C-alpha cells in the first residue's frame, strides 16, 4: 500500500490553465473588446509557468518522501451516491506519485514551450479575427484536461480529463471551422473519441462492480491496486453463440481500457482517422499529437499495468496492436506526401512501440519512450509548421524542397529531433527508451505466439527511419519545387518560436540521462551508479512482468541500429543522389504504391461497408419502413380508420371527426367514472 501525504496545492496545477482557458473563452463570448495578443499570451504563459513551477515543487516534495509515497489533494466530493457496499464515489481529488510526476512535468513543461511557440505562430497566421484568443482558450483547456488525466486520483476524474482531451482536440482540429476539411475531420475525430470513451466507461463500470462484489467498492487508483485480488476467479460467460467460455473480468476490463487507449493514441483500428487530425494548426498538432494525446493513452495503460499483469490476454493483444500499428503507420508514412501526415504517422508508430512496451510487460520503457517522444515529436511538428507557414500553407512534400538552406537553425533543431526519433545511438533520448522496449519484445520471443513481435518491430524501426529521413530530404534539401518568389520570403522564424524548439532539442539530447541503461553507463571511464534513474523512480508504481533485462541486449542494440541505418541510408541516398528514382519506383510498382497511399482502402471500406449501410438502414428500414409505413401507416392509421367506422355506426348523427371521437371517448370515460363513484359512494 502506498503511503499518502496530503498536499493542498496540487489542485492548482490543472486549475491555472483551466482558469485562463475559461477566461479566454468567456471574454470572447461576453466582452465586446478582445484582449490584445500580448495580454492573451502573457496570461496563458503565466498560467503554464505556474503549473510547471508547482509541478516541480510537488516533485521536490515527492522525492523527499518514501519510495512509494504519493501526494494527495482532496478538494471535495464530485459525485457520491449509493449505499454500502456499492457506494459510488468520485472525488475531486488529485494524486501525485512517481508516474503522475513524470507525465505532469512533461505535459506542463512541453505544454509551456509549445504555447510559447504558438504565441509566435498564431500571431503570424490569423485567418480569423478572433482566432488568436480562441486558440489559447482551447489549448489551455486542452492542457488542463491533460493535467487532470495524469493527476486524477480516481478513474472517474481521469475520465473527465480524458473526455476533455477529446473535446479540445476536436475543437483544435476543427479550429478553422469555416473549412470543410477541418469540420469533417473534427467530427470524425470526435466520434472515434466517443467510442474510446464508451470503452473506458464500461471498463470503469466493470472495475466498480467487481470491487463492489468483493465489498470494497472504490475507483481510487491507489485502492484499486490494493484490492486487486477481488478480480481473482471472477469471470463472465461468453454468449452461447460465441462458445460460452468464461472470460476473466480482469481480461474484459483490460480489453476495455485497451480500446480506450487505442482510440486516444491512434492505434488500430483507430489509426484510420489520424490523417484527418492534421487539419489542426501546427502548434496544436505539436501539442495534441506530439506531446499529449498518445501520452494519455500510454499513461492509462501504464497506470493500470497491475491490471494487465493479471490479464495476459489483454496485454498480448496490446503488444500485437502496438506492433501492427507501428508497422502499418510507418509503412504509410513512407508514401505519404503531406508533411504533417508523415509526422502524424510517425507519432502513431512511436505510440505503437509504447503499446508494445506495456504489452510485453515493461511499462517503464514505454513511459520512458513517451517522455522522449514528448521531447522530439513537438520539435518536428513545429519545424513542419514553420515550413508550411513559410510556403503559404503548402502541405505537400512534393512541392517543397531546399527550404532548409534558408532556415538553418530550424533545420538543426529538426535534425536533433529526427536523430532522436529514429533512434541513433548514443546520445539522443529516443534511442535508449525504444531499445528497452525492443529488449522487452525480444524477451517475448520465448513465448511461442509472440515470436513475430520482435521481428515486426524491427521492420517498423527501419520503415520509420526511412519515412522521417525522406521527409527531411524532401522538405529541406534537393531542388526547389515551389514558385521562386516565395523562396525569397522564407525567413528563420522569430526567436519566440525558435527558442522553444531549441530548448526541446536540447532536452532531446539531455533526455538520455534520465534513463541510461547500466550497460551503457559502464562504458564511461568514470563510474555512474544507478544510471537508469527513471526505472528506479518508477519501480514502486509500475508492475513490470517482463524478464529482467537479459544479456542479449547488446545484440538487440546491434539489430536495432542496423535496421535504423538500413532504413535511413536508402532514404538519404534515394532522395539526395537519385531524386528521380522514387518516381520511377512509384510508377513501376504503381499498384503497391496506390494501395499504400490510399491506406489500403480501409477508410473507403469503412465508409462503404459500415457507414453507408448503417445510414441506409436508418433511413429506409427504420425511419421510413418501420416508423412511417408499418407503425404509422398500418397500425395507427388502421386503428383510426377502424375506430372511425365504429364511431360512425355508434354516433350516426355526428360528424366522424377525430376530435369528436376523442371527446366521445372522454365522455364515456367520465360517465363510467361517475357511475362508479355513485356506486362506490353508495357502498361506503
Amino acid at each position, binding site marked *: 500500500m502506498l503511503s499518502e501525504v496530503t498536499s493542498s496545492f496540487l489542485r492548482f496545477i490543472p486549475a491555472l490553465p483551466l482558469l485562463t482557458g475559461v477566461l479566454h473563452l468567456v471574454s470572447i463570448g461576453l466582452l465586446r473588446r478582445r484582449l490584445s495578443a500580448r495580454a492573451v499570451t502573457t496570461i496563458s504563459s503565466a498560467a503554464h509557468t505556474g503549473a510547471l513551477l508547482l509541478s516541480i515543487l510537488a516533485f521536490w516534495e515527492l522525492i523527499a518522501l518514501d519510495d512509494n509515497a504519493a501526494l494527495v489533494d482532496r478538494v471535495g466530493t464530485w*459525485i457520491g451516491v449509493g449505499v454500502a457496499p456499492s457506494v*459510488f464515489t468520485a472525488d475531486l481529488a488529485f494524486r501525485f506519485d512517481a508516474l503522475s510526476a513524470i507525465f505532469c512535468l512533461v505535459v506542463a513543461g512541453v505544454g509551456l514551450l509549445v504555447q510559447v511557440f504558438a504565441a509566435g505562430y498564431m500571431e503570424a497566421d490569423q485567418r480569423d479575427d478572433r482566432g488568436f484568443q480562441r486558440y489559447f482558450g482551447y489549448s489551455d483547456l486542452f492542457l488542463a484536461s491533460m493535467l487532470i488525466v495524469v493527476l486524477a486520483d480516481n478513474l472517474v476524474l481521469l475520465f473527465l480529463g480524458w473526455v476533455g482531451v477529446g473535446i479540445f482536440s476536436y475543437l483544435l482540429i476543427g479550429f478553422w471551422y469555416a473549412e470543410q476539411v477541418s469540420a469533417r475531420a473534427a467530427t470524425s475525430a*470526435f466520434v472515434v473519441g*466517443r467510442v474510446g470513451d464508451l470503452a473506458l466507461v464500461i471498463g470503469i*463500470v466493470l472495475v466498480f*462492480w467487481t470491487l463492489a462484489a468483493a465489498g470494497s467498492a472504490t475507483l481510487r487508483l491507489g485502492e484499486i491496486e490494493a484490492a486487486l485480488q477481488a478480480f481473482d476467479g471472477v469471470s463472465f460467460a461468453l454468449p452461447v453463440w460465441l462458445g460460452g467460455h468464461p472470460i476473466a473480468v480482469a481480461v474484459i476490463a483490460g480489453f476495455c481500457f485497451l480500446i480506450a487507449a487505442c482510440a486516444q493514441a491512434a492505434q488500430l483500428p483507430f489509426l484510420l482517422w489520424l490523417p484527418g487530425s492534421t487539419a489542426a494548426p501546427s502548434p496544436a498538432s505539436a501539442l495534441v499529437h506530439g506531446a499529449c494525446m498518445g501520452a494519455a493513452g500510454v499513461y492509462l495503460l501504464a497506470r493500470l499495468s497491475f491490471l494487465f499483469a493479471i490479464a495476459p490476454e489483454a496485454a498480448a493483444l496490446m503488444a500485437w496492436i502496438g506492433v501492427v500499428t507501428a508497422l502499418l503507420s510507418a509503412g504509410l508514412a513512407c508514401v505519404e506526401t503531406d508533411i504533417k501526415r508523415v509526422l502524424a504517422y510517425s507519432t502513431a508508430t512511436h505510440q505503437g512501440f509504447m503499446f508494445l512496451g506495456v504489452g510485453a510487460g515493461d511499462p517503464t520503457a514505454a513511459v520512458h519512450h513517451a517522455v522522449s517522444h514528448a521531447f522530439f515529436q513537438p520539435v518536428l511538428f513545429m519545424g513542419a509548421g514553420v515550413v508550411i507557414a513559410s510556403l503559404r500553407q503548402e502541405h505537400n512534400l512534393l512541392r517543397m524542397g531546399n527550404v532548409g538552406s534558408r532556415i538553418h537553425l530550424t533545420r538543426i533543431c529538426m535534425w536533433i529531433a529526427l536523430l532522436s526519433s529514429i533512434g541513433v545511438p548514443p546520445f539522443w533520448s529516443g534511442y535508449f527508451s525504444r531499445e528497452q522496449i525492443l529488449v522487452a519484445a525480444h524477451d517475448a520471443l520465448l513465448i511461442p505466439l509472440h515470436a513475430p513481435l520482435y521481428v515486426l518491430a524491427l521492420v517498423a524501426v527501419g520503415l520509420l527511419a526511412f519515412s522521417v529521413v525522406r521527409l527531411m530530404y524532401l522538405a529541406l534539401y534537393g531542388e526547389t519545387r515551389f514558385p521562386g518568389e516565395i523562396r525569397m520570403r522564407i525567413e528563420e522564424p522569430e526567436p519566440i518560436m525558435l527558442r522553444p524548439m531549441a530548448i526541446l532539442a536540447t532536452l532531446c539530447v539531455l533526455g538520455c540521462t534520465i534513463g541510461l541503461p547500466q550497460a551503457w553507463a559502464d562504458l564511461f571511464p568514470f563510474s555512474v551508479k544507478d544510471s537508469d534513474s527513471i526505472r528506479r523512480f518508477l519501480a514502486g508504481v509500475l508492475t513490470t512482468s517482463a524478464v529482467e533485462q537479459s544479456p542479449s541486449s547488446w545484440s538487440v542494440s546491434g539489430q536495432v541500429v542496423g535496421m535504423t541505418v538500413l532504413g535511413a541510408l536508402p532514404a538519404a541516398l534515394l532522395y539526395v543522389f537519385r531524386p528521380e528514382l522514387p518516381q520511377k519506383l512509384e510508377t513501376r510498382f504503381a499498384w503497391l504504391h496506390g494501395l499504400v497511399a490510399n491506406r489500403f482502402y480501409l477508410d473507403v471500406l469503412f465508409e462503404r461497408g459500415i457507414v453507408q449501410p*448503417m445510414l441506409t438502414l436508418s433511413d429506409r428500414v427504420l425511419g421510413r419502413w418501420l416508423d412511417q409505413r408499418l*407503425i404509422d401507416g398500418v397500425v395507427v392509421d388502421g386503428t383510426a380508420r377502424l375506430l372511425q367506422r365504429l364511431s360512425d355506426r355508434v354516433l350516426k348523427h355526428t360528424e366522424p371527426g377525430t376530435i369528436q*371521437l376523442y371527446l366521445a371517448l372522454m365522455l364515456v370515460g367520465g360517465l363510467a367514472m361517475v357511475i362508479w363513484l355513485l356506486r362506490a359512494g353508495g357502498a361506503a
Partner: protein
Amino acid sequence: MGGAGMGPYVEGHVLSWLIFIPGGTALFLLAVSVALRIFFGASGLPGVVWRAIGLGGSGLALLVAGVGVLGQFDPEGIGHQMVERAPWLPGYGIHYFVGVDGISLFLVLLTALVVPLVLLASWNQVERDLASFVLFVLLLETGLLGALLSLNLLQFYAFAELSFVPLWLIVGVFGGAGRIRASTRLILYSAAGSVVSLVALLIVYQLGFEQTGVWTLDWIGQASSGTPGLIDVRIPIAGEDVAVWRTQPWLFAAFALSFAIRIPMLPLHTWMPEAHVEAPTAGSVLLSLVMLEVGAYGMMRFALTLFPNAAADAVPLLFALAVLGILHGALVAMVQRDLKRLVAYACLAQLSLAMLGVFSLSLHGLIGGVVQLVSFGLTSSALFLLVGVIEERRKTRDVSELGGLAKPMPVFAAILGVTVMASAGLPVLSGFVGQLLILLGSFAVDARAALGAGVGLVLLAAALLWMFQRVALGPVEKAENRGLIDLDWRERSIFLALLVPILWIGVHPNPVLRRIEPSVLELMKQIDERRDLAPILTLHDAEPSDLASPIETSDGDGV
C-alpha cells in the same frame, strides 16, 4: 407525509400557490379580457399586456419554486415534504393531496424555469391569437406542476389531462401546415392511453376499497391505510387451478401502456416526431416537458411502485425496448434533414436512456434516470429553442439549406455546440452524471443492455455532432445565410438561463444527487414492501371488511 387520518393535513400552502399561480394568472387575464369586451366594448386586452402578465405569472411561479420550494426543501428529509391535503370529494375518498420529494423537486424546478423562457422565446413568434397562446401555456404549466406534485392518482390523472389539452391546442392552432394531422395523431395516441389508464384507475379504486375497506387513491406517498400497497388479486375464472387472472399484470400493463405512449417508448413513438415537426417552437419545448413529466415521471412513480411484481416480470421487455429506443432514436436522427425531426428522434433516444435507468430498479439507475430526465428537459428545451432561432431567421429547418452558421452567428454556434455536447453526455455538462449512473445501474442488471445503450449513445453523439457540423461549421455556401443576425440579448439571456443549470449539474452534481437519493431509497423501500405482499384470492361476494387487512393466503407463488 400522508397522515394517518383522512382529514385535512397541511404543512403549508407553498405547493398550492406554485400550482395555481400560472393557472390563476391565466384565468384572471381571461376574466379581465372578457369583462373589458362585455362592459367597455373594447377588443380585449392588448397583446403586450397578455405577454407581460403571462410572463409575470410564470416568473412568479419560478420565484415560488426557487425560493419557496427549493429553499424549504430539507435534503435529509424522508418522504414527501410540504404536504398539503384537503378534502375534495370526501365521500369518495378523494383528496386534494400534494407534496414534493427529491424526485419531483427538480422536475418542478425545471418546469418553472422552462415555461417563462418559452413565453420569452415566443415574444416575436406568435402574433395571431396571442391571448389564447398565453392562456394555453399558463394552463399547461398548472397542469404539469399539479401532476408532478400530486399524491393522489385521480388528481394526477386530472392534472395530466389538463396539461394535455392546451398542448394539443397549441399544436393544432399554432402549428405548421400539417398541424391537423399531427394533432389528430397526438389525440389518437393519447386518447388510447387515457382511456386505458382511466379504466385501470377505476379498477385500482375498487380493489383498494375491497382491500382496505376505505375508498382511497392515495397510493403514492406513505401508506395511508392498513396495507402498504395494493395486493395482487388472483381471480379464478375457470376453476381455481385451470385459469387464474391476476390483477397486477393487467393493471401494470394498462398503466405502463398509457405512460409508454406519453414518454414515448418504442414502438409507440411515431406520434412524437410528427407532433414536434408541426408544433411551433414553444409547442415543441412544452411537448418535451409533457413527455418527460407526465410520461417518464408517471411511469416511475405509479406503474413501477403500484405493481412492483408485474414490473419486475416485465423488466426484460422494458429493458429491451429502452435499448432499442436509444439505438432507433440515434440511428434515425442521423439521417433526418429536418432539424426538428432530428432533435425529436434524439429525444426518443434520450428519454429511452432515462427509462433504462428507471427500469433497472437499482439505486444508481433510478438516480441516474431522474438526473437524466432533468438534463434532458434542459437540453431538449435548448435544442428546440435553437432550432426555433434558425427557423425564425431562415424560414426553414432543412439541414442542407444551412451550413457555416458559425461565421455569421458565432454566439448561436457556441451555444448550439455546448448544448449538443451536453446532450451527448460529456462531463462537466448535465448529461454526464445521468448517463454514467444509468450505465452503472443497468450494467448490474444486464451487461448486454448497458453495452447496447452505450453504443446507442455513441451513435447519438455522432448524429448530434454531425448535425452541428452541417449547421454551424464549414464554409457559408448559401447566400441567404451570409447576412444572418446573431442572437440578440433577449435570446442570449434565455439560453444563459438554460446553460447555467446545465453547467451546474455537470460541475457540481452532488447537491442535486444528495436531494434525490433519499427519495429514491424511499421509493425502492416502498417497492420492496409492496413486492413482499402475497397475492390473495378474491371472491367477489366477500364483504370488504373481511379483506381489510392483508391476508397471508396459502399460495404465495406469485411473489
